[in-house]
């Protein structure tokens, strides 16, 4: 595909998602009480969008990932939060 074709196919959808993210950040800021590690992780991941090189999606995913390599002692619960709490 040409750049023009990519823009024709995906600009509107991506613009919509960008506004959603902006509104989410406003919403979280207007709300009361402390945030948790997820907000910091989100802001950190957003920095990857400004990178000049290819591989932004990969870098965003890596930014949210547990970088450790040893199995944990025990699974407490089954769910995932989307961001690594960093411990």
């Amino acid at each position, binding site marked *: *595909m040409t750049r023009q*074709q990519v823009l024709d*196919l*995906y600009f509107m959808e991506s613009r919509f998602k960008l506004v959603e993210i902006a509104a989410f950040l406003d919403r979280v800021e207007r709300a009361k009480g402390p945030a948790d590690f997820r907000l910091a992780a989100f802001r950190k991941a957003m920095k990857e969008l400004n990178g000049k090189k290819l*591989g932004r*999606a*990969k870098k965003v*995913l*890596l930014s*949210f*990932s*547990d*970088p*450790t*390599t040893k*199995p*944990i*002692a*025990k*699974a*407490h*619960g*089954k*769910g*995932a*939060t*989307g*961001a*690594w709490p960093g411990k």
Partner: protein
Amino acid sequence: MRYIEPHGHMVSRTTDDYQDMVTAGCAAVCEPAFWAGYDRSGVQGFHDYFCQLTDYEPKRAAKFGLPHYAWLCINPKESEDVKLAEEVIGIIPEFIDKPNVLGIGEIGLNKNSRNEMKVLEMHVDLAARTNSLILVHTPHLEDKLKGTRLILDVLKSDKRIRPERCIIDHVEEHTVQRVLDAGFWAGMTLYPESKCSPARAIDIIENYGAERLWMNSACDWGVSVPLAVPRTALEMRRRGHSAEFIDQMIFQNPARFMSQCPKFNLPA
């Protein structure tokens, strides 16, 4: 259009879904064993589930003219209880020779715990002993990268395991390269709120090549779309991919992987 749904939890879906899938061109559906959304109370619950996957569900699919295949295991979400896992793995040989069973899956990790690792190794051993194909679930979200690394280590350290007979599912941009580089197949799951979108799945195909990749909806009892594969095929068409290439991605590739099990046969 013809396609194979290589990963669908059809016991959680309605007959309307079967009808829609067949209408959209589905030629076969493959159902890995999954967590029920609650922990089963004992091995008898798994016995009943394996009967459902190997007897009742293929009959239900057949009513819509759809061949149904299954994979058996105790899901990583229930693998913290090693004793239960041993019991469940103990009954799998009763079912492994059923005509619709393709192999062991979806095994893998969920929270990357030591017990989950033990149970993964037990499943890999069972697959090696029974010369079965393997379908692997990689963990969600922040746990995926670490889980994928650990899973690849387990599979690579068992010399009986041939990577071309294993599919590592739910890959994303940060895990696909290491899976393919190690010689395994990689599956992309098309979910509305996590894993891959159709657009990103096609990006991955364009970046990493179509040789050992497939796409699935992994439709289950959660937020998921049973028609995600044919919808992604439409997206591929919008992006200018040829009908032959789309057919390779959504039909020929899963057929090529699963045909490594002689029981996988599609009606001519």
